[in-house]
């Protein structure tokens, strides 16, 4: 126990890096920790198991296949790239009881991650633009997924909250588009470099230079005079706390309080990729199976946790299997895609209550539909939205 406390004290001092080609292991200090794992350009399988350590191991990708196009061709070695390099360099930071584990990209393309089954909440942040990139999650209590991932499969979980976004515009600090009402904080390691107050309202673009607003673009017109800018500053300020120094690109936006962009968004932490113009390979899909559906309160290790049943995607297909015994409202919208269903109940226009449930997680859209499973339950909503991807709703076998 003393060793564990010492380890945590070291994390608290500013984080640690572990370069190793053996499995990275860390024993969880308490049962209600929140763990976030950040990965870049690597596929991963995250599995709940009966141990009490979190284990991360870089392994040869079991799904790696020689592409059909390479038939008859030889693999040419590329300098400085060792295909057998399985060294991972996790950086661990401790925030109170919670751990943030970042695994920078390396010579590996696949991580096997084991998580104690007793861990209540796990967040995975992954940016993977590689053809065939994937995240497989199995046997986790509450899973939260953020990032850009060609393929996501979630199986056997209590609750899920998935946002697979992919085509943000370039959002360098100086081009930050605060077309949101609210307080936005840009953070990097929690250390303040820049701080500025800038207005944000729908349709505007604000340029921040050395902590001051120097340009605003509103309604297609640029305003650079201080007088004009001051007159435009009428809404909620944006605090630029920090930016990513190496990429000179915003990595994270912390939302304090409510953000308004036509609809309310919840407070929370959004993480953005270094390059916002992301065009990850298609096809892309999110497959959800074997969820332990219930609206009953969820107690893990004797503590209450909120449930989430939310999927937000842009171009990814959403493929959701639901058992026909569940009594719930499926509330969904595909803005430009198609929706297919194998469920017995038909789709109807969403009620005000359903729309409210949808708005709690996503921007309001036109054409929100509801399927009332077994007569429905407006207090038990499963919400999902995508843009150009299709939605497939299936009866779980």
């Amino acid at each position: 126990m003393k060793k564990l406390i010492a380890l945590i004290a070291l994390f608290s001092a500013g984080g640690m890096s572990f370069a190793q080609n053996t499995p990275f292991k860390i024993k969880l200090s308490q049962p209600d920790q929140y763990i976030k794992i950040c990965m870049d350009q690597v596929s991963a399988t995250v599995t709940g198991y009966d141990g009490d350590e979190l284990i991360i191991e870089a392994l040869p990708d079991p799904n790696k296949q020689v592409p059909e196009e390479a038939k008859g061709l030889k693999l040419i070695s590329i300098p400085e790239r060792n295909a057998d390099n399985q060294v991972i360099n996790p950086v661990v930071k401790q925030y109170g009881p919670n751990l943030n584990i970042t695994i920078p990209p390396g010579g590996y393309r696949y991580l096997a991650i084991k998580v104690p089954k007793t861990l209540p909440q796990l967040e995975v942040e992954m940016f993977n633009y590689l053809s065939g990139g994937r995240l497989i999650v199995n046997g986790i209590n509450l899973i939260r997924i953020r990032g850009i991932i060609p393929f996501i499969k979630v199986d056997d979980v209590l609750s899920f909250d998935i946002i697979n976004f992919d085509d943000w515009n370039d959002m360098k600090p100086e081009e930050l588009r605060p077309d949101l009402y609210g307080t936005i904080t840009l953070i990097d390691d929690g250390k303040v470099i820049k701080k500025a107050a800038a207005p944000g309202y729908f349709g505007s673009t604000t340029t921040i230079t050395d902590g001051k607003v120097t340009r605003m673009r509103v309604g297609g017109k640029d305003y650079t005079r201080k007088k004009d800018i001051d007159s435009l500053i009428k809404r909620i300020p944006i605090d630029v706390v920090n930016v990513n120094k190496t990429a000179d690109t915003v990595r994270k936006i912390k939302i304090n309080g409510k953000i308004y962009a036509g609809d309310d968004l919840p407070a929370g932490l959004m993480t953005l990729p270094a390059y916002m113009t992301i065009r990850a390979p298609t096809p892309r899909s999110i497959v959800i199976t074997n969820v332990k559906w219930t609206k009953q309160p969820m107690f893990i290790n004797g503590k209450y946790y909120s449930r989430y049943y939310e999927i937000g995607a842009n171009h990814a297909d959403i493929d959701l299997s639901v058992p026909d015994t569940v009594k719930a409202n499926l509330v969904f919208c595909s803005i430009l895609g198609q929706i297919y269903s194998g469920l017995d109940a038909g789709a109807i226009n969403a009620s005000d209550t359903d729309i409210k449930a949808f708005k709690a997680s996503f921007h309001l859209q036109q054409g929100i539909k509801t399927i009332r499973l077994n007569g429905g339950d407006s207090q038990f909503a499963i919400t999902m939205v995508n843009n150009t991807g299709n939605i497939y709703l299936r009866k779980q076998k």
Partner: protein
Amino acid sequence: MKKLTLLLLLFAYASLCKAQYTLDIINIPAKNKNIFIASKGASLDIIGYDGDDIIVKPLAPAPATKAPAVASGLKLISSATDAAGSFKPEITQKTDKIIAINLPESSFKDIQILVPKNAYLNVTFFTALKVQSALTTGSTRSKISLSKLNGELNLIGSATLISLNDVKGPITIDARDNGSAMAGAQKVIISYLNTAKFKPVETDKPKPLINIIARYADVDISLPASLKASIKGDITYGDLYSDLALTPATPDAAAAKNLYTSNLNGGGDIISIYAGYGNVYIRKQQSFKVN
């Protein structure tokens, strides 16, 4: 009177249909011109020919998209449709030497363009198609195809497939950032390089024979086995495959991670490839292929 009303209604309906799907062919004189084409929301099939005009021909719309295989056993309960618009190319004579054709987004998702085969050609495109078009198959939602062209080619933009066949070069393809994931280039193919008439451009800084910048796409190029070429690749995450006799070469600058340099037949024309996240295939050109 009722018949007349019905006739008028029918005429109005016929006019409406014609406005939506006019398959008019447009001829644009372009002798000895550098040709700039800009297109949005359409797959293009650009073919070189012996004439002097540019001939723009919108193709008939593709049949309705079939349900994907993954939807087997499910029924369609909601569907969005593409917005339509009339086909109105804008033609601008920039200078005596340059003619520019702008093809705005319209209900026509497939456009064939015949151009003088020796012309310099610059094509910018953004083809964020949500469904397959008549020129595309499989998972390819949009395609920019160029063939039978002997002039210099500059391509900038995004389509799921960028395909060149029977071209001579120099060729520059910039498919880096493209505005939409669904339009993101997945593959860049050069399937037949006609080097019989190619003469490297003699300048202080030699112009590459092929220069491809494709952040997320696979790059698949076929080269004649006899071609003398110096290949420079920046292949950040993908793999490189080849069946050509490539010999490692000393890079211009210090060796760096993911930078690959090699020579084909002792070196010669520069072939530069940046593939950030895709694989690169450099294969022996087999035989003449027609798209």
